[in-house]
Each structure stands twice: as structure tokens, then as C-alpha cells.
């Protein structure tokens, strides 16, 4: 689809481009968040937009997550398309009342009279010892809530293409950016492109087992897959990209082919995305399975600070590789 000599840009640059293009395209797109104005955001996500968009469209908020998220919702009901930057997903907890009871419900409750075209952006995941208040994933909590679209990109290309699609969505989107992508350079085509919501990406084709991996786990799985290939084990690696709606079909088709499934999710194990994906496969493709579905998840503990412990609580490429070996044995 894209050529090999795509230019390399960082995840943050990909986000900047998506925002810039969409804000140029549609004057109704505005951004709310702490420090997203002239400063360019806590991660640099709005850098470079200030000259063009200014304080009218890049609204620096006080530390009032509940209120400014609710404002974004109200603004979306009144015709804007706000991007609400919550910085870390942890801070979305303080806005949960507005997210769950207003954003997710308005279209449903009003019988389709009102829509909430807004994007809630937040950073997720373990990264460089940020400690237990800045390292969580938590998307499973919001996947549970009907009416919310949940997007977890795993590459700079998808950060761009999916953010653009999210901004154009008429339903509220949680757009969750794994911190490990921010400063990494990756291939992203020049010019405008959209990545559709609800469409998984088969990152690597294989025959011996299927891996469904989310966020940074895609990178880890691809590393494991490369190493496994040297042992003659060919795994298919699927990145769902949007967790709600989930591209079940691609997953099921892969399992029908490989007959073995490993689901890898950095989020804490209980009721996580991996549980949902596993259950859907049981519901849809049980008879194809030659072995129990295996789930590798973030531990059922918070993310601790000290490097050795922090590393321990999420799946690693090595653990993925080992697990596949056992699965195909």
C-alpha cells in the first residue's frame, strides 16, 4: 500500500500532522486541554499549531477535567468537533461522570437527536518509570461503556490515520496513545490519508498461531515473531487498532486458519480487552481451536515505579516467544 521509502517521523509528529490537517479542513475542530496552547502540550502534541490556530481554537484549560470534558461534550452537541486532551488516561477518571453519562449516552438517550462528535485523547501505558499514577492503560473500563469508540494505535502511521478518522467520527472516540510511540521514528506516508475505524491490521502473516496484540504489545509480538520464524514457527500478528468496534472477522478468519490464538494486552488482566477478544473467538470459532486460547496480560497489580518491577508487570517479547512455543508444541 505504501512504499518502502516512506519518510520517517515520530509518533508525536504524526499526531501534530493529523491535528493540523483536520483543523485546516474543518473550522469546527478545536482542542481543549491543559497546556495545549502556545506550549504545545505536555508531549508536544499540539506543537506548531499555535500560529495558525491561536487561542481561539487551542484552549488552555484549568485543571478541571470534569468541567472541561463536559464543556467539550456540550460544545459537540452545539456543533463543534472538540478534541479533548486529557494528557494521561489516569486523569480521565476525574472526568468519568461526564464521559460515561453524557458523552456516551447523549445520542442514545435523545433518540439520535444529538450527537457527540468528539475525541478524548490520552496517553497510556508503562513508559520510563512514571509510577503508579502515570502508567496505566485502563481502556477496558471504557470499552465496557456502550456508545464510546476506543482506538489504540500501535504505529505513527496509524496514529495519524486513525486520529483523522476519529475527528471525523460522529460518535465520541477515546483515542489512546501509547507513550512508547511518541519519540520513536516510524514510516508515515506523505500527504493525507485516513485509516478506517473498526478495521484490524494484519501486521504479519503466518500459519502456525495467531497473535492479537494491542498497543505496544504489537511491537513486542512482531519482535517475538521474527525470532520465532528463525525456529520455523510462523505466527500471524493482528493489531485490532480499534477495540470498539472490534474487527472480529479478521481475528476469527485468522484463528480458523491457524487454529491457535494468543491474545496480548498490556492492560491489567481482569475484564481486559484480551478477555473480550478471547470470549468472542470462543463464541464464533470454538470448533476451530486446537488448543486453549492463551492470554498474556498486564499483571493484576498497579504499575510500580522501580525499573525491575515495572518491567515485570507487562508481557515481554521473551515471554511472548516462550508462550507461542508452548502453544504450538
Amino acid at each position, binding site marked *: 500500500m505504501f512504499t518502502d521509502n516512506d519518510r520517517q517521523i515520530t509518533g508525536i509528529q504524526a499526531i501534530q500532522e493529523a491535528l493540523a490537517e483536520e483543523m485546516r479542513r474543518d473550522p469546527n475542530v*478545536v482542542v481543549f486541554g491543559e497546556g495545549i496552547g502556545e506550549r504545545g502540550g505536555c508531549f508536544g502534541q499540539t506543537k506548531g499549531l499555535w500560529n495558525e490556530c491561536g487561542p*481561539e481554537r487551542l*484552549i488552555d*484549560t*484549568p485543571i*478541571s477535567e*470534569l*468541567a*472541561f*470534558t*463536559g*464543556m*467539550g*461534550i*456540550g*460544545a*459537540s*452537541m*452545539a*456543533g*463543534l468537533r*472538540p478534541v479533548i486532551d486529557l494528557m494521561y488516561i489516569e486523569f480521565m477518571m476525574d472526568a468519568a*461522570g*461526564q464521559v460515561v*453519562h*453524557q458523552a456516551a449516552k*447523549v*445520542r*442514545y*438517550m*435523545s*433518540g*439520535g*437527536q*444529538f450527537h457527540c462528535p468528539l475525541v478524548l485523547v490520552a496517553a497510556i501505558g508503562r513508559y520510563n518509570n512514571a509510577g503508579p499514577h502515570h502508567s496505566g492503560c485502563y481502556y477496558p473500563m471504557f470499552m465496557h461503556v*456502550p*456508545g*464510546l*469508540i476506543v482506538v489504540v494505535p500501535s504505529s505513527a502511521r496509524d496514529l495519524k490515520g486513525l486520529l483523522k478518522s476519529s475527528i471525523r467520527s460522529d*460518535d465520541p472516540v477515546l483515542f489512546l496513545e501509547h507513550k512508547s510511540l511518541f519519540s520513536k521514528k516510524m514510516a508515515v506516508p506523505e500527504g493525507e490519508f485516513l485509516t478506517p475505524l473498526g478495521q484490524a491490521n494484519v501486521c504479519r502473516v503466518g500459519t502456525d498461531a495467531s497473535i492479537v496484540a494491542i498497543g505496544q504489545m504489537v511491537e513486542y509480538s512482531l519482535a517475538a515473531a521474527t525470532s520465532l520464524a528463525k525456529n520455523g514457527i510462523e505466527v500471524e500478528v493482528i493489531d485490532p487498532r480499534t477495540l*470498539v*468496534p472490534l474487527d472480529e472477522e479478521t481475528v476469527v478468519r485468522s484463528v480458523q486458519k491457524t487454529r491457535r490464538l494468543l491474545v496480548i494486552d498490556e492492560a491489567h488482566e481482569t475484564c481486559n480487552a484480551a478477555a473480550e477478544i478471547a470470549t468472542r473467538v470462543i463464541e464464533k470459532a470454538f470448533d476451530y481451536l486446537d488448543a486453549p486460547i492463551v492470554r498474556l496480560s498486564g499483571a493484576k497489580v498497579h504499575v510500580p515505579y522501580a525499573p525491575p518491577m515495572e518491567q515485570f508487570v507487562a508481557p515481554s517479547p521473551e515471554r511472548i516467544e516462550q508462550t507461542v512455543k508452548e502453544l504450538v508444541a
Partner: protein
Amino acid sequence: MKRKKAQDKTRGERAEAGCEVDEDRALDFYRSMARVRKFEEAAAQYVREGSIPGFIHAYIGEEAVAVGVCGALEPGDYVTSTHRGHGHALSRGLSMKSVMAELWGKRDGTNLGRGGSMHIFDASRHFLGTNGIVAGGVPLAAGAAFAIRYKKTGQIAVSFVGDGGTNHGAFLETLNIAAAFDLPLVIVVENNLYATSTPYACVTKTQDIALRGTAVGMAAETVDGNDVEEVHATARKAVARARGGSRPSLLVCQTYRTVGHYEGEPVAGTYRTWEEVEAWKQKDPIINYKKRLIERYGATIAEQLDRIDEEAGQEVASAVEFSRNAPFCAPVEATEHVYG
């Protein structure tokens, strides 16, 4: 501005304060209040009877607030409401039939019977919903106000909230933002002294809610919420501030519900004394307004007011008839209007 009871004012003082309106307007106010009252009485009855499913929070005793404030608005202005929101909906011109049918859970309800009393929406009236979450509508209104200013449409936004809601972060945070961002917003506090059974005085040290506006630099006034003309006059100033200068206001209306928190709750005898309820019934916004209009315009107007009462009763009866006979959505329609 310290609250001054309506009955303390002479007519001259009222006119001077810009409160007194002309006769047509007065009749409109009276009609609007009567419609809300009759609607609530009927709704309560059909909840008791069990033909309206779910539960409702009646607005009886507080009608002057919704009518006074909404009387100051233009059709395009946005409004967010509360769990006690039928009065706001009707005062904003939503069809009485559709609101009643929503309470009955019928397809002809404002929003297909999917929401009921606490979730009444009408896009055509820019009515952003009654709300089951206390203070949940306040940030929404601020957002609408932001959108308005951004698009320079000249509209404003109004948010109703209860005294209980003023202790919630959604209100407190938004209050600061509205002031800081110069939003064209009017936040109307309906201070009926209680949040469910909890007296405001038991969960606050000072009861002057307007101070909270002042503290964040917002214009704030307190009025007799049972005096429709005083509410209206003050609301007009607040609306002008919002529409003309994009300056928000906090308008605290002192009022009282002379019914239980929800239909079915005892009116008094538990957390409120009968004496207190009786004293407030003496300040009933509709009965007293009727008296005042008769004083002001003479006995001839009494007949008109009686006719208004009667017409309101008839309108409500026909809304009930309509709602009772309307169909439900099919069960499977529950799966519509949601993504994913």
C-alpha cells in the same frame, strides 16, 4: 444584592426596579406557570396510579424560576436542565404532548420514550436535556456557550441547577471556567433549601450561594424565586450581560418545592415540618401572582386568569389522553441510536 421578599415591595418600587411587566406579558407568565403546575399535578397523579412508569421529581412551587428565566430567552438559546426539569422543558416551548408522552415512555415522546422524565431532549428547541446526574448539565451548557461564542451566533446558554448541585465539582469547576473564559452563560441556581432530605444549611457553613460566583469573579445576584417578575427582571440583566458582553452570571433563586423530592415521598413530617411547608405554600408563586395581577389590573382580569387555568387543565388532559394511547417503540428498537 440581598434578597428582598416580593411582598415587601410596593408597586412603585417594583416598577422602579424594572420588575413590572405589561399586561400581555403578565398573562403569558401566568399561563406558563399554570401549564407547568397542571402538568406536574397530572404527571404526579399518573405516577401514583402506576400508568407512568419510573419516577418523577415534580417542580411544584418553583414554577416562577423556569418561567421567569425562560421568558428572558430567545428561541435559539441553549438550555440544560436537571432531574426536576419538566418546568424547564415546558417553559422552553417543548410540546406538552411530547413531554408527557416521554414520561409515559411512548414513541411519540420527545425522544421516543427512551429517556423519560430525567432525559428529555429536544434539538429543535436547543434543549440539551433534563439530566439524571446532579450538576451534570452545567458543563454541557458552558460548552454550548463556548460553541456559540466561537461561532459568533449571538445565542446564549442557560443552565439550571439545584442548591444541592452547587456542592458538586461539575458546578464548582465550571463556575470558575465560565468566569475565566467570559462565556455567554447564565447559571440559575434553584435554591429550594434541600437536596433530597438534606438541608443546604447542614452541608454548608454559609448559605449565600452567590458568594461562590463572586469568589471566582462572576456577576452574582440572589432573587426571590417565587416572584416571577423579579426573577424575570434579573434574568434579563444576566441574559443581556451574556448576549451583549459575553459575561457569565450566577443567578440564585430562593424557592421551595411544596411537594416531596420525588412523587411518592411524603411532603412533610420527615425532614421538613408541616409548618415550614405551609409557610411556603403561602408564598406560592402562582396563587400570589394571581392575587397581585388582580390587585394591579382589577377584578376584570380574574376571569381571564380563571380561563387560563381551565385551558391549561384541558391542554394537560389532552396530553394525557394522547400519551396514554400512544404506542411504545418495539422492544428491539432499544438497540438503535448507539454505535459499537
